């Protein structure tokens, strides 16, 4: 499944099994997500925990239902491999932390049933399930999906306790108005559309600022940029992902942002803010690197990643939505078969054009 293994020359048997399995890979990704998620819980309190739990349970439930309807005999084993669990987790990280329960329920249905099981289950889906759900929810329910709350540490006065958190999650208690806030990208988009340039928009009091420690409004997965980055580096270190996709996504987003900012700082956000805001890091390390929906070769993955970064920047800068990572991932997912056709590994014993290489004997004879 790893992109590298196709490009490498095969080694003669006997082969040793590295012990990698779907379950172990998913577990490592989940370990990498733990710090950022815990930090998000601390920032946004009980409602965000309930949303996280509900999204995962919803994904597991829909997966079990689909497997049962398909007559699978390995329902328990498939659920235990953690793929639906991880899809739910990633989806929860992209939602507004105080979204109500039905967002989790519908999101799980879209991610698991429409984006994954309809295509044939794990390994068959064309599009990243979590991102399909995220985009479908955003398009379907624009209002609940864009209501961000300020982190408790800023809002002060302590967060909702367990019961109030549950009531906010169940929708019987509207979130207090004082908690409402805008994410950085949303704020800049609104201000730009009002004709306020960025120099003034970001200097104004109360403007959300890019923050390395992540105390700001946003989804669970976009606030703690550094913890997401740390998780991504952990995945790189234990070779769950290769460097191609993350680096290419960040380059594809950062380079145009730097150029744009150098040309007109009043209109284009700087590269650091772009990379630390929204789903940039989460997308680069955790979402775009999905084995199923990314190209097979290293070169293909670089093309794929650059495309995601560039499309994200284009949508953020000129598009109607403040954040474009999910759209960019889906768009490039659709192009993966094309990329895999264009960027092919060299066949062993042949050159790039497919012609047989000179035989070694011929070279020796010439010598």
């Amino acid at each position: 499944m790893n992109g590298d293994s196709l490009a490498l020359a095969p080694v003669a048997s006997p082969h040793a099994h590295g012990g990698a399995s779907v379950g172990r890979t998913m577990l490592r990704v989940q370990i990498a997500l733990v710090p950022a998620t815990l930090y998000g819980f601390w920032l946004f309190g009980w409602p965000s925990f309930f949303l996280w739990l509900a999204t995962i349970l919803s994904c597991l439930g829909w997966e079990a239902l689909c497997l049962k309807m398909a007559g699978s005999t390995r329902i328990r084993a498939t659920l235990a491999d953690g793929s639906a669990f991880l899809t739910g987790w990633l989806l929860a990280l992209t939602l507004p932390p105080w979204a109500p329960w039905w967002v989790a329920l519908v999101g799980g249905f879209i991610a698991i049933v429409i984006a994954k099981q309809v295509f044939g289950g794990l390994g068959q889906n064309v599009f990243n399930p979590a991102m399909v759900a995220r985009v479908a929810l955003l398009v379907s329910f624009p209002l609940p999906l864009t209501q961000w709350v300020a982190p408790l540490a800023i809002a002060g006065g302590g967060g909702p306790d367990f019961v109030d958190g549950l009531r906010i999650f169940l929708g019987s208690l509207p979130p207090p108005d004082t908690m409402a806030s805008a994410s950085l990208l949303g704020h800049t988009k609104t201000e730009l559309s009002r004709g306020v340039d960025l120099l003034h928009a970001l200097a104004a009091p109360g403007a959300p600022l890019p923050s390395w420690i992540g105390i700001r409004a946003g989804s669970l997965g976009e606030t703690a940029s550094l913890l997401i980055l740390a998780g991504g580096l952990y995945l790189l270190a234990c070779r769950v992902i290769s460097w191609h996709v993350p680096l290419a996504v960040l380059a594809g987003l950062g380079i145009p942002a730097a150029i744009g900012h150098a040309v007109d700082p009043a209109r284009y956000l700087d590269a650091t803010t772009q990379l630390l805001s929204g789903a940039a890091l989460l997308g680069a390390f955790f979402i775009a690197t999905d084995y199923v929906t990314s190209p097979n070769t290293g070169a293909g993955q670089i093309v794929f990643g650059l495309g995601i970064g560039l499309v994200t920047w284009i949508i953020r800068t000129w598009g109607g939505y403040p954040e474009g990572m999910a759209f960019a991932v889906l768009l490039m997912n659709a192009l993966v078969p094309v990329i895999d056709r264009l960027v092919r590994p060299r066949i062993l014993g042949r050159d790039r054009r497919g012609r047989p290489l000179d035989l070694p004997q011929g070279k020796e004879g010439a010598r």
Partner: protein
Amino acid sequence: MSDNVGSIVKDGLWDQNVVFAQLLAMCPTMAVTTSGTNGLGMGLATTAVLVVSNVLVSLIRHTVSSQVRIPVFVVLIATLVTVVDMAMNAWLHDLYKVLGLFIALIVVNCAILGRAEAFAVKSGVVASAVDGLAMGLGFTGALTAIGLIREFLGSGTLFAQASNLLGPSFAFLEMKLPGYGGALLMILPPGGFAVLGFLLAGKRAMENRRAARATVVASPAPA
């Protein structure tokens, strides 16, 4: 193609359903099924054209040589569509404003030329009329079903503005789910594809199950 009325009707409504079995006429199926009323109106307009075109094609089937039959059929269908188009503009103006463009496009609806070619040109007038009616009603049913599902999920209503189509006495059909904002995606094209896909899968699953049951019932009998 048998002239047995029962099997023609069954073909049109279910076995050879234009949308769910032949997968024809996808353009109107996707485009107008944003509400049950739109689907019903489009389906009925198509049915009217289909019945008359089938009858006319069947009547002239011995007169027109096979080399020029397609242009002749197209002219016939285009005439009928224009009549329906003007009639709807005159008497169902509100619905016409919603469906306007797609009414004119009935002329290129492959279901109509398809039935002319596959059925009417080979069959008698009565059988052709029955076939047109059954196919049209099957199409109407499919469009209305998709439209109702999309409308319900997308805006929380059922048969909104049905009185525009059927007259004020049918206003009782209009229902609204209170307190439901609706999932906008279902009204947009992806919702159409998703609903059609699930309905197709459901029809297949139902038929597979029925076939499996039939073999189970049939197999012990000889033994």
